[in-house]
């Protein structure tokens, strides 16, 4: 087996395993879908008409909800990675000479795929609630691109957190900030209308440029500057997550 195909074969074995997990535990998918849809109902039907954002509120809120779906979908990954580590499953693989990349990549890729399925559901519901994007085909591709980049970044961070947490419960808690951060971004209201402190926080945290980029693409009004900031954040967070995961993987036997 050549140097390149061995990790690939291992990755696909691990992917099959993770895929079976998701199919046997569909709650992991439901988890990612229910909360964003609930928030969408709340924002669009209950609160949406109460504040004006200049555009139809479903159009305004959907990009934020898409990002939120990513954040809500990662809990099971943190728990799964952590139990792989704490139950000795990863050690078993290490002794079998299964590449580190295979184990970690499989978790990241299956998280991204699972997240994309969840997002498809959420976007479907958004359409039913009046979401009418005006993106061109390339803009749609751009939107999918930024979603995938964000999902990658968050997945790597989650895998790293899962590897370094002491217990599955601890790993779950590490995901909470990620669930809260979208609320403190421009997901549901423009940052410049927020109070002092909250506004600065919203402006400088990664989710605001990411959501603004996605919103711009979906509404057919992309801004290159915001997109570059968003891509830089995604790349930086992915790298940080990847390095953190790699270090934890090596350190904990």
């Amino acid at each position, binding site marked *: *087996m050549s140097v390149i195909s*061995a990790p690939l*074969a*291992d990755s696909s*074995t691990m992917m*099959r*395993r993770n895929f*079976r*997990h998701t199919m*046997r*535990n569909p709650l992991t998918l439901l988890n990612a879908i229910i909360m964003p849809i609930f928030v969408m109902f709340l924002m669009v039907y209950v609160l949406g008409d109460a504040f004006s954002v200049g555009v139809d509120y479903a159009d305004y809120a959907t990009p934020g909800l898409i990002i939120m779906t990513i954040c809500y979908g990662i809990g099971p990954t943190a728990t799964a990675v952590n139990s792989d580590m*704490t*139950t*000795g*499953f990863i*050690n*078993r*693989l*290490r*002794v*079998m*000479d*299964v590449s580190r990349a295979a184990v970690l990549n499989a978790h990241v890729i299956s998280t991204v795929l699972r997240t994309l399925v969840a997002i498809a559901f959420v976007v479907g519901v958004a359409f039913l609630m009046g979401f009418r994007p005006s993106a061109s085909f390339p803009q749609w591709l751009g939107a999918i691109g930024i979603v995938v980049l964000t999902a990658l970044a968050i997945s790597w961070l989650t895998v790293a957190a899962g590897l370094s947490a002491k217990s599955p419960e601890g790993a779950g808690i590490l995901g909470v900030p990620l669930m809260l951060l979208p609320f403190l971004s421009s997901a549901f209201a423009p940052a410049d209308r927020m109070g002092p402190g909250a506004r600065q926080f919203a402006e400088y945290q990664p989710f605001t440029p990411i959501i603004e980029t996605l919103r711009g693409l979906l509404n057919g009004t992309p801004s290159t500057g915001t997109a570059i900031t968003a891509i830089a954040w995604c790349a930086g967070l992915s790298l940080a997550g990847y390095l953190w995961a790699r270090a934890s993987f090596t350190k904990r*036997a």
Partner: protein
Amino acid sequence: MNGSAIAASGLRKAYKDKTVLDGIDLDVRTGTIFALLGPNGAGKTTTVNVLTTLLAPDAGKVVVAGHDVSTEARAVRAAIGVTGQFASVDNLLTGEENLLMMADLLRLPRAEGRRIAGRLLDRFDLVEAAGKLAASYSGGMRRKLDLAMTLVGNPQIIFLDEPTTGLDPRSRRTMWQIIRELVADGTTIFLTTQYLEEADELAGRIAVLDRGRLVAEGTADELKRGVPGSHIRLRFADRHELDVAARVLHGSTRDDEELTLRVPGDGGVRSLRALLDRLDAQSVEVEELSVHTPDLDDVFLALTGHGNLNDQENPDDHENKEVGAR
């Protein structure tokens, strides 16, 4: 002719300032069971992790299956199988899927993987449960599946880290039987346990690990012999006989109610004969004689009992400091 399956010398490992392994030497012969016995926190799992290439030692040399763990980790991994302290089976896969996943990771051809999985399920009496999720398995079944997963790769040397901890007595016996069968097939087993009975039952050689040091090594019998506590128990017909015997046999302890005398000694034939000769010389009749050798529990307590000399240094240090402070 048995070669060496595992040879370690001068193993050291510390985490920050805490020394976990403090100079360990091991020699495990091919085709034998070797037990590393020690209380929780003695360093058993760390030892296994070093021997199985998971952890690099700070110092020392380890050769497993003829390969150096630090420079030829790959060759070592190809020869060993490890079953960790927790049954690391995948709960959301069935028993059979767990085994097939191992076969895939070992890059065995599909058909061969299926054949091996089928044979292992049969061997470990898991055929009926093969299609059920591992999450529904009992503790004993999980351990069996865990070991079966290790065996997919047909390793020459198997490391079992506390293989029966938490199992009920029947599952434990089943596991022991399986381990014996593995050795009968020529496999070398390195076992860690905190159960003396287990080491006694299974292992040809036993090493006792305490606070990162090997405090004793040998066969179960050798260990028992080296520990004070073996004695000869004599029972007499009446008080008079007991009185006479107690006077003759120095260092003995009497029990007036039971009319018995406990004489320290190793129970060897020569010392036993000498003892009886002395009683004969005084015309003392012995009703009953029994030789008590310590079991491994005595060995364990004697070797790892933490009321030993090393510990007593600490209170002294403490006292000195207090004196200094005054």
